[in-house]
């Protein structure tokens, strides 16, 4: 298993599934080295494929599913303890009367977070990554099957608390949202630039604590824009409620866009059917 960051395979578990879900590699055991033939001439095979090709294939399948059903999916990333789950439960409380919401929770162990989300009355499924340090598109695809997502709904994916690895793994989401709390350093966007470069939005969280800290908000935003000039920033607090309306409006705008996009696709298909029917009628059938 990974000596760098603990990434591993074979220990991932989706809540409610009896068996641990493992990737199957075609391992060849036995004395391969001794039996290697020297009589065969070796040949070259062109590959030219991205190392994350497999994950990207699963991600595009997820993305197509979201597009076909008008689902707005967000991948929430942060370090552990940034207040993601509290922010999520507050967000859900504000949105659940107006929108259908489902949540995928990623953690190494326990279903504590999914339990907290379910207490708000929306459906949630927990993925335990075992030794893994991030969610991948394959795990998310399986969790989506369990959730049976509604059309025009909101899917919130809370990734494993880790500012490094989740940056590289596309889950098929519309946007990554990076959550940074003011109890962390303002230089985090520079220390973990890949994550802030990949995010569309940064939520600067726990701002109710600012009076007690030496956190420089403008400097933090400047650092974030240095790695990602297009990043949008909202200052939030799950405790005081600051910024929650702006965050909710940002989500609502994304959901509207996803639903409209789906509706347009459906309209285009209906027009195409009408055209084809007319063409068929013209051929005297």
């Amino acid at each position: 298993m990974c000596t760098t960051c603990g990434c591993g395979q074979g220990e991932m578990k989706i809540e409610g599934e009896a068996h641990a879900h493992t990737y199957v590699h075609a391992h060849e055991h036995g004395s391969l080295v001794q039996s290697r033939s020297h009589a065969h001439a070796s040949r070259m095979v062109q590959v030219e494929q991205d190392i994350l090709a497999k994950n990207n294939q699963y991600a595009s399948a997820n993305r197509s599913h979201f597009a076909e059903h008008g689902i707005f999916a967000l991948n929430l990333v942060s370090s552990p303890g940034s207040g993601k789950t509290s922010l999520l439960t507050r967000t859900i409380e504000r949105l659940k009367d107006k929108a259908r919401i489902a949540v995928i929770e990623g953690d190494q162990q326990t279903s504590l977070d999914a339990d907290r989300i379910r207490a708000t009355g929306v459906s949630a499924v927990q993925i335990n990554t075992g030794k893994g340090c991030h969610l991948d598109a394959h795990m998310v695809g399986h969790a989506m099957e369990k959730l049976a997502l509604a059309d025009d709904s909101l899917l919130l994916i809370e990734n494993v608390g880790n500012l490094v690895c989740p940056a590289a793994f596309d889950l098929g989401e519309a946007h990554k949202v990076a959550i940074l709390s003011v109890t962390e350093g303002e230089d985090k966007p520079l220390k973990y630039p890949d994550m802030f470069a990949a995010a569309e939005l940064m939520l600067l969280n726990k701002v109710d604590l600012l009076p007690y800290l030496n956190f420089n908000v403008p400097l933090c935003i400047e650092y974030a824009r240095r790695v990602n000039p297009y990043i949008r920033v909202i200052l939030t607090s799950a405790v005081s409620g600051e910024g929650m309306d702006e965050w909710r409006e940002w989500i609502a705008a994304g959901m509207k866009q996803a639903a409209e996009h789906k509706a347009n696709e459906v309209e285009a298909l209906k027009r195409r059917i009408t055209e084809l029917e007319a063409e068929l009628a013209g051929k005297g059938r």
Partner: protein
Amino acid sequence: MHEMSLAEGVLQVIEDKSKIKGFSRVKTVWLEIGELAGVEVESMRFCFDAVMKGTLADGARLEIIAIKGQGRCLTCSKMVSIRLRYDPCPLCGSYPVEPTGGLEMKVKELEVD
């Protein structure tokens, strides 16, 4: 970054290709790794050997082709060489430089039996 996951990704690409191209033994693997991709080459070598054990690429030689980091400065609009993804523009000193090359993480070629 997360070289073990990447090495597993390499193995998946190799295994998929072996079914299409019909080979059962890999002798050499060429990867193209961009300087800005955030991959630690030494760590990648270590993880590669560990992941390939007991597979069709057990003991395979790993060749890494480094791709130079390049970008366009959003302030002075010039194409520049950069060694780190979030370095300032070497010409005008401004941030950010939008990377245009050096983010690759690719399996390029295999030598197989």
